[in-house]
């Protein structure tokens, strides 16, 4: 088994209005439940905008905190799911379900350590 990160690529800007978002979130919850039932679900979460990001780094031996995301872009990581799958095809199958629900592209990326 291997763990995969399903990275939700979200465009910068306001989220869709509630009447669009609500059914999506309902389907998302259902899909997460299905992943749990299938035993592949490890962790999932949505993220606030990069506006809410802080970056910490070491500068001249001191830890410095600054505002903002590390890189600016037209897309950012809007949320993610971590799942445990036998191989890439299984991970891609779930990612396919997720992208259908969200209407957003999903990057599927393996973790270094085998789970």
């Amino acid at each position, binding site marked *: 088994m*291997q763990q995969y990160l399903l990275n939700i690529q979200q465009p910068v800007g306001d989220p869709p209005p509630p009447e669009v978002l609500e059914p999506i979130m309902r389907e998302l919850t259902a899909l997460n439940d299905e992943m749990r039932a299938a035993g592949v679900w490890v962790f999932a979460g949505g993220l606030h905008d990069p506006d809410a990001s802080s970056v910490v780094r070491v500068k001249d031996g001191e830890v410095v905190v600054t505002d903002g995301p590390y890189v600016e872009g037209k897309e950012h990581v809007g949320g993610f799911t971590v799942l445990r*799958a*036998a*191989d*890439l*095809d299984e*991970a*891609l199958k779930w990612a396919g379900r997720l992208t259908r629900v969200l209407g957003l592209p999903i990057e*599927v*990326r*393996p973790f270094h350590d085998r789970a």
Partner: protein
Amino acid sequence: MHAEIERVFREEYGRAVAVLVRFFGDIDLAEEAVQDAFGEAVRRWPSAGLPPSPAGWIITTARNRGIDRHRREATREYRHAEAVRLGRLHAGEEPPEEGPVRDDRLRLIFTCCHPSLAVPAQVALTLRLLGGLTTTEIAHAFLVPEPTMAQRLVRAKGKIRKAGIPYRVPHEADLPARLRAVLTVVYLIFNEGYSASSGDRLVREDLCAEAVRLGRLLAELMPDEPEVLGLLALMLLTESRRPARTTTGGDLVLLADQDRGRWDRALIDEGQNLVRRCLRRNRPGPYQLQAAINAVHSDAPTAADTDWAQIVQLYDQLLALSPGPVVALNRAIAVAERSGPATALSLVDELDLGAYYLFHAVRADLLRRLGRRAEAAEAYDRALSLTENAAERRLLTQRRAALT
């Protein structure tokens, strides 16, 4: 004997790598082991003679060499445990050499052509692992620097390992989509060998042969998939015309002007049989239809005898199945033969293909046949400005010169 080993290498490399990938679960180790085994064959076979089953000998030797390699490199604990596991496997069971072996190659082809890999990587991996071509040969054929090709192969194999791309023939539901990728790769290899005339000719003809070999392998492994048979038929029928396709000076000879006596009858018969076989299944696909079009050409003893009405009909089907301006352009060429250049020209002029040299070449030819010389010359110039291919340039230049 050297030629004999060369032949065994060409025929058995892919099979051996596929079996050992299943055995070791590691592409690099499998490749190294098989190369070791062929090295051993080069040393031993000339004096000892060809073994009764060269393929079996290679696979057994490669497996032993691979286990040795594994033991030698078992510095870290898990590698050691792995060597022990493999040692047990080795003692316990002989690798089956028939039956599952067929599936091993199929599994490896689907692994190489996994949609998570970029198409250039799919092509390179397929040629490398199934065809046994060296990195140098593949780099040469695709006109990329050797280090680029080496890096591409390393990265692709790394992705298979890291991302966990499975060694598996896709399930029924995923098969059509995945098979399309496999067929695309094989046809791309064939076209690279057939259409490009720059670079080393020899390697490029090798690419056609390699694509046909892969096509035959797929047809043997998946005889119930009509598009697989269609692709093989298409390649065989196209290949059958190669001897007549260029002059001794390397100039292109158009289909209508080819000496049909020089077409390869054996390839035509094989291709036509395949076309009949797959069309009987009544699940026509783009490869089957293109093969059928080529089969109609091969049926005609002279260019004038070509059944253009049937070809137009087949293009109609093809256009319905996979619409696109290039298909429409080819259909228009057939329409010109059936209904005259004026009808064809009006079809061609509707197409949005201004950046495609063949579009201008076809227009030029139709205009020439209609006696509209100035416009024809202009179209030849446009075509000439859009192709770098030397043989095509010579043909276009000749045609243009014949106008005046």
